């Protein structure tokens, strides 16, 4: 697992989880800030450490699946065995534009207005 820290967590059933183990956190402050950026979220300063602790606790539990030998097992992305569900390509009216745009925080001339993506560009 490149860059990852696989913590071997004890196998735990609900309720039998040991108290917070005194081991290195799976995810640290820098990683939390990186993931928050990827997620388009801003965390308040006091929430960064809390998030690191909570995510680490969850990931320690989740890391148990790393112990399983699953080489050669096909991954399941979907349980229903469906392939290429087709329907006739018939044009039909979409939702009325004015109704859809009316839901937007800042509609303008039948479109969605947003702040300029280049506001900070040099």
């Amino acid at each position, binding site marked *: 697992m490149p860059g*990852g820290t696989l913590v071997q967590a004890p196998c735990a059933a609900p*309720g039998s989880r040991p108290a917070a183990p005194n081991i290195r956190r799976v995810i640290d402050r820098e990683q939390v800030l990186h993931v928050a950026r990827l997620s388009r979220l801003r965390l308040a300063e006091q929430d960064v450490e809390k998030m690191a602790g909570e995510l680490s606790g969850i990931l320690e539990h989740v890391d148990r699946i790393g112990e399983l030998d699953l080489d050669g097992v096909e991954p399941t992305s979907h349980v229903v065995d469906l392939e290429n569900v087709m329907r006739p390509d018939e044009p039909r009216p979409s939702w009325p534009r004015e109704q859809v745009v009316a839901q937007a925080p800042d509609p303008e001339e039948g479109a969605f207005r947003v702040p300029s*993506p280049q506001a900070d560009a040099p």
Partner: protein
Amino acid sequence: MTELLELTVADAAEQIRAGEVERGDYAEAWHERAAADDLNAYLWTPDDGSRMSDDEQPGNDTAGTLNGIPIAIKDLFCTKSVPTTAGSRILEGHRPVYTSTAVRRLQAAGASVLGKTNMDEFAMGSSNENSAYGPVLNPWDRRRVPGGSSGGSAAAVAGGLAPAAIGTDTGGSIRQPAALCGIVGLKPTYGAISRYGMVAFASSLDQCGPLARDVTDAALLLGAMQGPDPCDSTSIGIEGGVAAPSRADLAGLRFGVPKELGEDGMEAGVRQVFEQTLERIRDLGGEVAEATLPHAGHGISAYYVLAPAEASANLARYDGVRYGLRHDAGDLIEMYETTRSAGFGAEVKRRIMLGTYALSSGYYEAYYGQAQKVRTKIAGDFRTAFESVDFVVTPTSPSVAFELGAKTDDPLAMYLNDFFTVPMSLAGIPAISIPAGLAPPDGGGPELPVGFQIAAPAFGEAKLLDAAFALEQGIGFDARPAEGS
């Protein structure tokens, strides 16, 4: 009036059809109850002006199986022109331009929308404490949670604020609140009911289903909602439809108890009611056998990779552009970030972060890839188990309803509530929770409902409902929350 509220949905629909009960009287009685909600179960109920008239209900077909029945709808279902928030601030005041297929099918069967029910934000939670609009109270004990995420729907039915409700289940969100509130909750096979117009959480797991007073009512709602829908290419429907369950005994049926069930973490009272229910199965002629699901114990781990990963992608759409909340800012990225940070609650942020991390470069194979393989193994475990048993049975939840605030500081402890329900979700198979008895929580306290979960092979709803019906009659659970608990 009170007698009307005592009727099951099946009986009320029959009496309305026969002209013994006035459609308008019945609806009025329930609208009064819903408006008097003191459990915070509803986020929206119509005032007289906004109540849809009969003419506006697409069905209004007196032959419909749900003719005249008002039904409580989880606020995750889009309802045209009616506020739909998914329990989130980011969708506060949002009024969709269309109605979800599940709700349209209920309306086509003659039902109407009684109100929109409270829920954990974006269906993420097991206690309803993650709602941006305050927690729902459990009608059995108002200091306790109703379960989640369909907590409003469960509390409304259990508390006599709705004759029946619909919810969604991604990892247990119908079954667990049904168990904690002492009612019936069914998660159908993935693909039984269209997901069109259901606000997406984890698309490969989300499934709509009924919460009802009894198995017959659950079957009635399922029958009305199921079926393929051109708007959801993963919807298949249940071949042959859904008949009213009628089985009187369990002769010739084998019920498998996973040997991995474990004593750890299960409350003594829950264990006792579970054992008593196995005895009841034997009394009814059923056979109780051992089953093995070697990978089910890894279900929570796999689920809390897969569901947040899908959620992190699905919730990317809440960006302050097309609907819902916007926090204005100087540039576009800043606007996205401030909007999302203000609009999402703590648990939703946690899951988006978790999912984004699991999908991020360098971690994808170790988390997402591995979790998908675990999913394959769990689905395989069930397939193997069903070669020798007809059903797999477990308690629905390791505990009875816990106190408000008891688990809010420990996300992982909250996640472990789903220990028994997540494996079926990962396998996509149907599972029902029926009330099996009352038990005190560990450490003492009032007696609270315990749910018994029965899971069947994919699209085995007919057999599942029949068995659940027979067991329901055998158990004869008739306890109700005391007035003003």
